[in-house]
């Protein structure tokens, strides 16, 4: 794969969470030849993840960071991948993502999204691209990329909460992940 821009090959992107959002954001950035990805997740692949997350049936039981390393290297062996398996806490964020030029928030739970955003905004100087409002089906065109403040970009419809009992489905989650990847590439090329 030939990088279309040298800036991207030197770029470092942090991805917090490798579920439906993170596994797809990582895939899109690897295909776009973003040079360095920092991947963080604590979880293992489960069969119920396969409805939307970028893993395979024979990877059930693997750590998501391990499975992501395998899958991303199959797509693009020319990028560097840094993997952190384990639960990220707010105090780890400045250290784990110290070299990142942009960070993608790809967590599942709302309180994790909250602490990730307040930590990046108060303790780092780089932009955060967060996903919020992606549950359910249809309503593709309600998903937007919005600049909430100087360093906070939010992707989603901002209302479709998993707590409303809505399902998570590949199409709608991937729209958000694709918006996130697109926003990240745009920020890297600014």
């Amino acid at each position, binding site marked *: 794969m030939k990088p279309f821009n040298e800036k991207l090959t030197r770029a470092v992107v942090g991805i917090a*969470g490798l*579920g*439906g*959002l*993170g596994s797809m954001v990582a895939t899109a950035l690897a295909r776009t030849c973003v040079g360095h990805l920092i991947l963080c997740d604590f979880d293992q692949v489960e069969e119920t993840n396969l409805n939307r997350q970028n893993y395979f049936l024979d990877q059930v039981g693997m750590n998501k960071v391990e499975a992501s390393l395998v899958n991303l290297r199959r797509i693009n062996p020319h990028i560097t991948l840094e993997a952190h398996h384990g639960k990220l806490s707010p105090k780890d964020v400045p250290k784990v993502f110290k070299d990142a030029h942009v960070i993608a928030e*790809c*967590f*599942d*739970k*709302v*309180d994790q*999204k*909250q*602490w990730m*955003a*307040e*930590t990046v*905004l*108060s303790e780092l100087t780089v932009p955060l691209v*967060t*996903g*919020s*409002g*992606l*549950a359910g089906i249809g309503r593709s065109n309600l998903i937007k990329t919005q600049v*909430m*403040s100087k360093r*906070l970009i*939010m992707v*989603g419809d*901002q*209302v*479709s*909460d*998993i*707590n409303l009992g*809505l399902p*998570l489905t590949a199409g709608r*989650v991937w729209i958000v992940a694709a918006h996130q990847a697109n926003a990240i590439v745009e920020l890297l090329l600014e």
Partner: protein
Amino acid sequence: MKSLKINGESRDFPEGLPETLSALLDLLNINHATVVAEVDEKIIKRIQFSSTPLKSDQSIELVRFVGGG
């Protein structure tokens, strides 16, 4: 009249301002675990919500999150 600018819109508090950021969020019925707050362009961490006093004419930005990923 005491007022705050909340997400760009002015809001009056004829019965007095909520004393803290935490009290304002409670008044607005916002779960603290779902919001990132900025007072006069400074991020206030969730742990400091209840120790952040509010003054009239401050500008408050509240960004809400919902779960799923």
